[in-house]
């Protein structure tokens, strides 16, 4: 079965996000004053083959922890969809 995982990676809440800060300022200057906070992370779409959704979920957790994120400063969440071709 083919799956697509849509993974969002963000900095842990306590970790400084200089990008988010700079973008917040820029939005304010552009008259989006009602914006109170921006956090910027990564978004990844991973396509993979697996026997089952359970197995695919396991694989995605594995790659997130091993490679795609640095658990010291980042956290992640994802959504898995089956790709029907």
């Amino acid at each position: 079965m083919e799956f697509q995982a849509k993974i969002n990676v963000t900095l842990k809440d306590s970790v400084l996000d200089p990008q988010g800060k700079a973008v917040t300022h820029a939005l304010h200057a552009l008259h989006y004053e009602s914006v109170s906070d921006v956090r910027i992370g990564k978004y990844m779409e991973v396509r993979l083959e697996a026997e089952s959704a359970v197995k695919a979920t396991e694989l995605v957790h594995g790659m997130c922890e091993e490679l795609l994120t640095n658990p010291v400063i980042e956290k992640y969440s994802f959504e898995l969809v089956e790709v029907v071709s």
Partner: protein
Amino acid sequence: MAAHEPSIEQVKSEKIYRQFGLTDAEYDRIVELIGRMPNYVETGIFSVLWSEHCSYKSSKPVLRRFPTDGPQVLQGPGENAGIVDIGDGQAVVFKIESHNHPTAIEPYQGAATGVGGIIRDIFTMGARPVALLNSLRFGPLDDKRNRYLFGHSVAGIGGYGNCIGIPTVGGEVVFDERYSQNPLVNAMCVGLIDQGQIAKGYASGVGNPVLVVGAKTGRDGIHGATFASAEDPHEKERSAVQVGDPFMEKLLMEACLELIATGKVVGIQDMGAAGLTSSSAEMASRAGSGLTMDVTKVPRREEGMTAYEIMLSESQERMLVVMQQGEEHIAFDIFEKWGLEATVIGNVTDDGMLRVLDDDGIAAEIPVTALVDEAPVLSRPSLRPGYLDELLPSPRAWQVEDYGQALHTLLSTPTIASKAWVYHQYDALVRTETFVPPGSDAAVVGVPGTKKALALVTDGNGRQVYLNPEQGGAMAVAEAARNLVVTGAKPLAVTDCLNYGNPEKLDVFYQFETSAQGISEACRVFETPVISGNVSLYNESRGVDIYPTPVIGMVGLLEDVAHITTSKWKAAENPLYLLGDLQKGIDGGLGGSEFLRAFAIDQALLYQLPEFDLAEEKQIQDACLLAIHKGFIAAAHDVSDGGLLVALAEMAIDGGLGANLTLTKWDLNEASLASLFFGEAPSRIVVEVHRDKEEAFLKWIRQTGTSHLRLGEVTRDAVLRVSSDDGVLLEASVDSLKNAWQGAIPAWMN
């Protein structure tokens, strides 16, 4: 007291101070010093200031032996950075610092914030940072995690320096198993200043306002200083990672330099390890004053932060400033222009107390002397390790099938190979004053508006220090000086970063104090006092310590940019000479060499180092420098890692030229060739002499009594050819040498 914080009694009964790294004896001493039991906040403050990282409790007695004085020294150790006179009312400010433990946890941010921290140390003094260097140690590249650590550290160093606009002009990288668990990232920053502009970290003048400027405070890196001294970084809490914001630092740097230039700053200090705690205590201590600070006024990034957290936070890109009373508005205006915050959080007092206020009143109240002057000093025991007495005499002979092949192999070992993969990630040219970029022996940056230039270098060789701590320490200084000299510069002064294992081990402490002794002796001989530095201990994991790795950062002066000399060959038919004693080089053998590490790794640590004589080294360096100043020399390169052939190959590759070398009349049998070619005896320099000046050079060099030997000459034909009376010993095309040398690191990393 903040909710959920342990009570005074709990700190004692539950021995909470131990979690902060304080011993029972230290806790008792605190009680004695302040005449009562410390509360939680006070215990935290003591623990960071009394940590190895801040108090230098193990290393202080050793550091005291360094020579720190000289006519050129304007500021020695003790301030945020040292300062050296370069004439015409100008001075150079520099310091090196380690960020080893944070890098092991999060290499990009760890390395980046190391760079950020050392830059702050320089502009704190009022100096304009003009160059960055680094010194790196990682485990071998055949391991995936080592590649990850190396790649991300390099990216982090570049990411910070490139963004802030300070060129990274030099450094070194060594790969060895010993650093796999404990990579080393040492960063050095160099600044220029007019002598009238020097600022210092003094909190003086009762009533003067104390300001926090720059970034907001978050919970980053709480207990980072203790953590820097903790044994195993992997066990450390994850919240201790700090994230750098180089853009913020750029703004902070410009604002601080503008502020210092107004002359209304009483004292200024960056917030490094232990943040507000150490910056405030140190500034008060230097001035013999006290400080009262209301932490509720400190701008914060996160909600609900306690006094404890605010005092111990290691959020980056912040400074503590004491202004003249009534002149605060100057700071407010300048910081506003740069889009930054400047906030008065307290004032200077004369009661010698560090007093911290929060919503509930006094959160901490400690005599500054108790925190700083009374910090423990340990005289740690040491013992000469047994292995030192079991080392065998350095071997001269080695069976080598094919010298050309061996040279290719050596050139492609990552420690010797071209570091272009690294420095191509660093903007080395921003400021348009970089006259010798990375890739030669030392970097050269111009002093704007003058004919002068600074030569800059970092050097260290842990394996050699391991094999002979005293001599290895001296050799590191000598190599740094030699790299400046071959560039045409006169060495001025030293900053040192002392990276060692666990100082509680007797043999590690022996390595530490003995190598420091060697550094001291060499610094005296080269008249290069130590003006700043940093100590990083506990580079140990699972019982394995790193090699004792002192890194020497050295700065030299070129009175005239016309003296700049690089290592690449310039023109065909120019003669090549070796300055130094060839026979001694042969006799020195292969002990401690990269050759052994590459071809017989199990024997790499079995042999004594080649001999080293400081007086001889000094004589050769002096001769080389004078020869350059007299205009004899077209190129110069010292013989170091990999030995003579590697040095020649590097000169050939850079210049795109070849050479014909003829070694006759020497006792060049199989028993000595390997050590002639690959031994790493110090005190040797290869020079390319201008053809039309050869006679004058020879006449002069003979007068100086310097050992020298004509090796051959440069050829247009890009082939490196070495022959003896018996015929050709080695013939290699410079292109193929170049491929081996340039391809090695990219092959692992791309």
